[in-house]
């Protein structure tokens, strides 16, 4: 019951935030240099005089700004995020087509990053001054400092020409299309490089975080209790220590989702992964503003959704929160 009330509050907050994002979008269109109608039509859209006239009417550009805002919000609420003159179709449809691919990439990366990062952190926390621990620190620093698009290009170079064992382009084999399970495996194979590239940045951060937290937790009283109980070391580490160390990691994973999404955009353009990233890249090239604005809005939707999921996972792990302490 308390959980339902809590969730309801979260959703109300989410709605308010998204409304604010729309208002921001509206403000951006109107503060950008040039005529708003040009922005809406897209500079390179080659909009004709008739199109421009109809846009003026649709968005009420002759009315006051407040009225225009309400017109804009009204359109959005009906699912009308504008029309991409470059792609020649409604923006919402474009996003809907591209979203799944981006989600696959982002989720694969986040799972990979959390699992590998945590394991590295746990392993290096056992001997904080050992050789392995130092190696993890170095790798994590390097992973953090390397621009994701650059590592992407280097891996593309490596697997594209030097050692061609993995596909470096697209989401599936278009020359020899496959069906069923074979298709699924083909997609997974195409997913390896993009998701590994993206995961690298986050493996770096999570391994570092996991290491610090594990060192902290391993010196906690309850871990000593677990050892005093004569539990096997694996139980001490994975049941008693790791679950406690995971709490701050879950928080950071939630906070990092925006960066994950932005990273996905960069990685997608490297490997021509057919998600929102390619869409963003093309929209920038064509100055397709409605599409860009919609991408910004939907990325906010994803971030908020990720935050709510994080909150639920957090509750699942920590009974102190579950009991409604907050």
């Amino acid at each position, binding site marked *: 019951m308390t959980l339902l009330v809590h969730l309801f509050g979260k959703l109300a907050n989410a709605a308010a*935030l998204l409304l604010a994002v729309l208002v*921001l979008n509206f403000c951006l269109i109107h503060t*950008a240099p040039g005529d708003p109608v040009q922005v809406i039509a897209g500079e390179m859209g080659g909009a004709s005089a008739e199109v421009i006239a109809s846009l003026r009417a649709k968005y009420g550009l002759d009315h006051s700004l407040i009225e225009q805002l309400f017109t804009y919000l009204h359109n959005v609420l009906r699912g009308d995020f504008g029309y991409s003159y470059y792609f020649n179709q409604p923006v919402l449809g474009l996003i809907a087509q591209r979203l799944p691919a981006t989600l696959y990439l982002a989720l694969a990366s986040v799972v990979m990053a959390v699992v590998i990062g945590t394991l590295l952190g746990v392993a290096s926390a056992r001997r*904080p001054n050992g050789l392995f621990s130092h190696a993890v620190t170095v790798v994590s620093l390097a992973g953090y400092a390397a621009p994701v698009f650059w590592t992407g290009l280097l891996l593309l170079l490596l697997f594209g020409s030097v050692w061609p064992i993995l596909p470096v382009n697209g989401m599936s084999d278009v020359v020899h299309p496959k069906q069923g399970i074979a298709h699924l495996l083909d997609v997974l194979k195409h997913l390896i490089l993009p998701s590994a590239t993206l995961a690298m940045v986050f493996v770096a951060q999570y391994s570092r975080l996991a290491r610090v937290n594990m060192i902290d937790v391993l010196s906690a009283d309850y871990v000593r209790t677990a050892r005093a109980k004569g539990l096997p070391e694996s139980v001490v580490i994975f049941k008693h220590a790791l679950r406690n160390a995971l709490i701050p990691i879950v928080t950071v994973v939630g906070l990092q989702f925006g960066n994950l999404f932005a990273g996905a955009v960069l990685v997608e353009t490297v490997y021509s992964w057919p998600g929102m990233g390619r869409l963003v890249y093309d929209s920038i090239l064509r100055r397709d503003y409605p599409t860009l604005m919609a991408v910004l809005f939907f990325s906010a939707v994803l971030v908020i959704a990720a935050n709510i999921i994080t909150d639920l996972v957090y509750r699942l792990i920590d009974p102190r929160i579950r009991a409604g302490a907050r």
Partner: protein
Amino acid sequence: MSTLESPLAVAESENAKSAAGPSRSASVAELPVAKAVSPTRAALRQFGKSPSGVAGAILLVLLVAATIFGPFIYHVDPLEIVGMPFAPPDADALLGTDYLGRDVLSGLIHGGRATLTVGAVAALITIVIGVSVGALAGFFGGWMDSLLVKITEFFQVLPPLLFAMVLVTLFGAKLSTITLAIGVVSWPSAARLTRAEFMRLRDLDFIKASRAAGAGSWHLILRVALPNALPPIIVSATLAIGVAILFEGGLSFLGLGDPNTMSWGLMIGQNRNYVLDAWWAVTFPGAAIFLAVLAVSLVGDGINDAVNPRLRRR
């Protein structure tokens, strides 16, 4: 006023007030005010003991020196076409040429100026906004805190790089716009950090004592709380430089670099499609970004270890 400008406006008004702050509270200046707990010198000495921190500092100095003095030693215009496109590294062009036949080494030297400047200025903007918002929220609490936390939360919902990308697309790919955009989208984490620090400090005895002795809020914020909150802020400022450099690269990579100013990001962005033909045109600028971010991260870690004794053992 647009939502975009509001955080800047907050920062500006805060600066204006802060300039007036010390003079207004001059009468209480002689109060026994607690000094920063760890003196700069002790922190510097501690920093000197961190091999990785010192290595980072040396690397950073080398990079900055190369971009400052490089043009006096290596006289090649980065935008001038000096040879065939995609000429591999040889005696003529030490690091090869790019897709237009421009010298990559010269691009690195001149591009470094732009990239490092963008990094430093954007980080400064990030910290000024973030610290202002965080300090006000953390120190005053109440409705001010609620409001500023809401604003911060709003900015955190937008993926920073995508937001910066939209701003640059709308307002034009100029170096100044890019710098401003990076600063405007990156401040929330600095704000959260500063807020937490100020909330902690607000309840400490020496702040309470100053307050009881009649010190004004601005005096307390700028002269008492801020110096004590400085160590983590310095660390986050250092890290913000790295983030800003990565963002400049990311924006350029998406085609949002300033085409009239050579930068490391721009070099990668313009040559990315030819990576299989000329690896050097992409690899070297990327390595430069990597080294710069690595250097500031190492320095940041070194400072963190120096000012944060609890973590020193790690």
